[in-house]
């Protein structure tokens, strides 16, 4: 689960990680109220959306005085921000963070993340922070220090030394850093983060570190032990169909194509999407109804898929293992009758009791297209959309 910058900074404050003074605002009045509590201008106004690249897209603006704040906050609030990470449809800005502009001496990059290959927590630090960090990382990898921390042992003094000497922090200002890194590490593990990123982490004119930005991604699998963090979920940042699917315990991701997909199992679902593409069409979604699908789940899956107006056909691909094909077929027939499926429905079923399942589908009188295997399904998808 991603959270907003202002929420991440709230967590930072809880761990005494220095962040600029400021507050979040959903309206212009609120933005002005926040500004009035701060010592003075210039301030910075930052659009709060779950995507990077805000600066270049016009979602981050400075304000030298109250008048400028009013004009710029007004413009950002309610704008649809399009960045390389939002996709072409962009994201509606519903909140801005108003904070004290920082006195930037140096810009650094600092992040903690989990490393799959080594099963460890990795600290990434860069002496060149700021915008276009992905590009810098790709073109100048020597500008980054990567320190692996064994999760059983945790952060050790030598890890901290590697980061600080690697970043070239002047020895006379090093004192504040060990506590900062230790706090970040504690924040990471205590909240089950997948990523904590500060870009830029600046050194102020006075020589102190300050987290000007904050990005946190939390582990969905660990949210059960962080009830407090659940309040950070922002449904406005999610596709409404995906939110609805999650309530049904369905794994659904909306895509831009027109062939709806329903599959049991994530790997087979991805492979089925690929088959659709190969057949010359585009998948409208990813939908994994789970390994132990029930008739009810199938029905809810259809309802979700059909809520997408782009869908002009549906491919159901179920490999019945524990779930018997006859049970599934009954589910499909019931769902088709209830939902009133108005688009062609192509069904490929395999596995336990497949013959009985096929008979139920054939006897249903529904206008179903059936495929005997995946190769057949691919050919019929092409026909269906032609």
């Amino acid at each position, binding site marked *: 689960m991603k959270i907003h910058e202002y929420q991440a900074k709230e967590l930072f404050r809880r761990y005494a990680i220095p962040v600029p003074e400021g507050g979040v605002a959903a309206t212009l009045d609120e933005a002005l109220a926040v500004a009035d509590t701060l010592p003075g201008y210039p301030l910075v106004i930052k659009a709060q959306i779950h995507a990077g690249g805000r600066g270049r897209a016009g979602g981050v603006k400075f304000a030298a005085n109250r008048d400028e704040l009013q004009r710029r906050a007004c413009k950002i609030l309610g704008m649809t921000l399009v960045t390389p990470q939002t996709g072409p449809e962009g994201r509606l800005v519903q909140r801005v963070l108003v904070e004290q502009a920082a006195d930037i001496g140096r810009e650094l990059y600092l992040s903690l993340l*989990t490393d799959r290959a080594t*099963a460890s927590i990795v600290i990434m630090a860069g002496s060149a922070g700021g915008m276009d960090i992905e590009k810098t990382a790709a073109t100048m990898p020597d500008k980054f220090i990567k320190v692996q921390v064994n999760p059983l042992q945790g952060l050790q003094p030598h890890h901290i030394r590697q980061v600080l000497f690697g970043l070239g922090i002047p020895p006379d200002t090093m004192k504040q850093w060990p506590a900062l890194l230790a706090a970040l590490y504690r924040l990471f593990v205590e909240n*089950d983060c997948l990523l904590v990123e500060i870009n830029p982490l600046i050194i102020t004119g006075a020589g102190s570190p300050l987290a000007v930005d904050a990005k946190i991604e939390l582990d969905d*699998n660990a949210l059960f032990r962080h009830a407090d963090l659940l309040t950070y979920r922002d449904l406005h940042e999610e596709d409404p169909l995906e939110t609805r699917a999650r309530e049904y315990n369905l794994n659904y*991701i909306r895509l831009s194509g027109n062939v709806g997909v329903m599959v049991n*199992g994530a*790997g087979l679902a*991805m492979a089925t999407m*690929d088959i659709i593409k190969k057949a010359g069409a585009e998948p409208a979604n990813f939908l994994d109804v789970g*390994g132990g699908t029930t008739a009810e789940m199938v029905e809810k899956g259809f309802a979700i898929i059909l809520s997408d107006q782009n869908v002009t056909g549906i491919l159901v691909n179920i490999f019945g293992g524990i779930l018997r094909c006859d049970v599934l077929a009954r589910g499909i027939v019931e769902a088709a009758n209830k939902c009133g499926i108005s688009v062609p429905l192509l069904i490929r079923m395999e596995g336990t009791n497949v013959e009985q399942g096929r008979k139920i589908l054939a006897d249903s009188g529904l206008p179903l297209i059936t495929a005997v295997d995946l190769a057949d399904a691919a050919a019929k998808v092409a026909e269906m959309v032609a």
Partner: protein
Amino acid sequence: MSIFVDQSTRLIVQGITGREGRFHTRQCLDYGTKIVAGVTPGKGGTEVSGIPVFNTVREAVARTEANTSMIFVPPAFAADAICEAADAGVQLIICITEGIPLLDVLKVKHYLTLTQTRLIGPNCPGIISPGLCKAGIMPGAIHLPGGSIGVVSRSGTLTYEVVHQLTRQGIGQTTCIGIGGDPVAGTSFIDCLAAFERDAATRGMVMVGEIGGSAEEDAAVYVQQNVTKPVVGFVAGLTAPPGRRMGHAGAIVSGGSGTAQGKIAAMRAGGLHVCEDLGRLGEFCKEIFSQT
């Protein structure tokens, strides 16, 4: 012959009294797996399908000489269950549980390096050596015993699809392993390919990958340097959008890495026989494996 599980496997089921544990215990018993004990704290002294239930893994191992454990414990308690089994001297742990917090898995992975225990999973369908032992949730009937092909995959039903196609082509399997869909797995593609390479009965392998991470790329390099048997490769997720977790916690393309295209290219470079058409994977394997 087979790898990791066979007729000498003496299995315990942790979480045997839960709905899933109960159901799959029955299924595995019906397949012929030697399940010798179950473990559920507080349910010691009871039975499930005639199998004695103990309060601790240590007690179950002491009484039944179990050497393998299959775990259905809920995600919040699964990491503890894995470590309990390792501490009790269980040599092979198969963790079916999906949804374990990643930091728990990281710690478990490092903890197990201090032991002799192998972990398969988590978030996996388990392992089957057809005709000998099924320690997992896969449908046993789609497998063909007495074969010579090993299958290793990050997925569940996609593996069933692959195995089913192999069986329909008359290609039997030595062992089929689902290593799991999480970002970090106890057993890697490389571990399995190395074991298949050593296994005299295995003449070729099928490796089924998906987007996310670099396990397929790493395995491709390993194959090039260490594997003499033919390996067929398949990768799911060519159409997956970047930055989204595709059902599996580990199936995500991030920052341009972990793409299906990249994995397919790496497999080709490593000398794997890549099949891009899942519908014809069985025929493709027949062609490749009959040449050798």
